[in-house]
């Protein structure tokens, strides 16, 4: 096995997913299959290859810069309009710090 159920629980914690027990078992099986296929990359020697984080093509150095100027933005009502719970124009969440 490339990944144990214990590791699946750890990764689920990192990902903020409260997986059910039956999901943990199936996830371990699915991830194991995918990671086994991914092992294929070990056939390649990539020692002197630069990582490619973004699509590479010729462009001016400053091509992605834009003028910094004021512009209209969303109103407070619009910005929080899709939140499940708001209060006074703010997002409301369960209490974080106990008194």
């Amino acid at each position: 096995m490339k990944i144990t159920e214990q590791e699946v629980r750890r990764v689920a914690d990192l990902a903020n997913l409260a997986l059910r027990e039956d999901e943990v078992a199936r996830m371990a099986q699915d991830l194991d299959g995918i990671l086994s296929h991914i092992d294929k990359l070990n056939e390649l020697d990539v020692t002197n290859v630069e990582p490619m984080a973004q699509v590479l093509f010729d462009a001016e150095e400053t091509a992605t810069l834009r003028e910094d100027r004021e512009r209209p933005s969303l109103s407070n009502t619009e910005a929080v309009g899709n939140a499940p719970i708001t209060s006074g124009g703010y997002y409301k969440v369960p209490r974080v710090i106990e008194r």
Partner: protein
Amino acid sequence: MSSPLNGLSIESIRAGLLAKKFSAEELARESLAYAEAENPKTNAYLTLSPERALNAARAVDAKIAGGEDPGALAGVPIAVKDVIVTRGLRTTCGSKLLANYVPPYDATAVIRLEQAGGVIIGKTNCDEFAMGSSNENSAFGPVRNPLALDRVPGGSSGGSAAVVAQETALVSLGSDTGGSIRQPASFCGISGVTPTYGRVSRYGLTAFASSLDHIGPFGKTTRDAARLLQVIAGRDEMDATSASAPVPDYIAALDGNIKGLRVGLPREYFDGLASETGDRVTAAVEVLKKLGCEVSDINLPHTPYAVAAYYIIATAEASANLARYDGVRYTTRSAGANTLSDMYRMTREEGFGDECKRRIMLGTYVLSAGYYDAYYLKAQKVRHLIARDFAEAFEQVDAIVAPVSPFPAFKIGEKVKDPISMYLSDIYTITGDLAGIPCMSVPCGLTTEGLPVGLQIITRHFDELTMFRIADAYENASH
């Protein structure tokens, strides 16, 4: 009842409007009525937008009445994939989490097509957050292929492909991260275009894997798809990765003459393709030869590593992008959560479907401490090798042609139990996304069962023009 859009094109709609044969409002009303009547067969639309459509159509009619130019997409009924945000119009991303999400802004592509007189008639079903190859991962049920209702339309832009094939929209917008435009286009027998990365602004495209995501058009013909791309392409300051490369006049270049173009056949894409798909693609290559293309074999040696590299990079980026669905801002919060941590964990557990969870988990794993170098960094290096394969091939040829998918549309339910075989079926489309080059699917005939097969055409960065010239010449020669 046949579609009011049957036999129409972007060009003929414009001509019909200017000749007062019909009004944009009439066409919009008829298209909406037809879409409403036909949609239960395919489940391709999640939301119809009659009010928005009729307002846009009336504005086109008013311009024509006033003697103004009504725009390049005047009166054209357009559908938009539900991962592309539309102000005031529900945008679900195919997810239960966003079932009631009403965006406060429009995507740049949406703004541009409406400014050009386009009439958005609805939002189309898709795999949840564009993760899937069959449209079976939608929280709102699968889409059925209009050409074979027991089969999938492909994914993730299954709805956007199905509505064009079903003629409940003339053209549509989809998104492509690993083949999500080309594969459904091939399954539904229409044209689908993945432009160069950065050619179309991603502003307002719900992020799945930011370094791989594209917006692109579907049309019954290459011309219609090219006209749609013409309108949405070009630099947008709201997306720093959108490119400032000039956008040439695509339609003006479609003269049918592709004599002398050098076309490469990647051996790695044809080896082991001993099926009807292979036969149809090979027959299409013969047509290109007759049209005067110089066809030769080429090699893209790192192709066998593409699926592995892709599923590391795409899921790593997805795990970060999908972190925002945490119960705070986006409509849905678990009712059972009493602490902040439970709010995150339970909202996400209840909200995401299986495929999203699988990809969030894989992405989180490959980025986690101790695994970053072995997986993510390595995949980025392999991505570079794959991009280099294409760059080297394009020193010898002007275009590459290949299959789109190893097989035609499969039955609904046939592959859902086996995520890896589903991932592996993306092999011919994933490579183009990793390299960021333009690629499209154009129909190249039917199998004996009557299922469409797609021919993939791939060109250099920002050379959509050559891709369209080949596709258009092939369409004209094969019809």
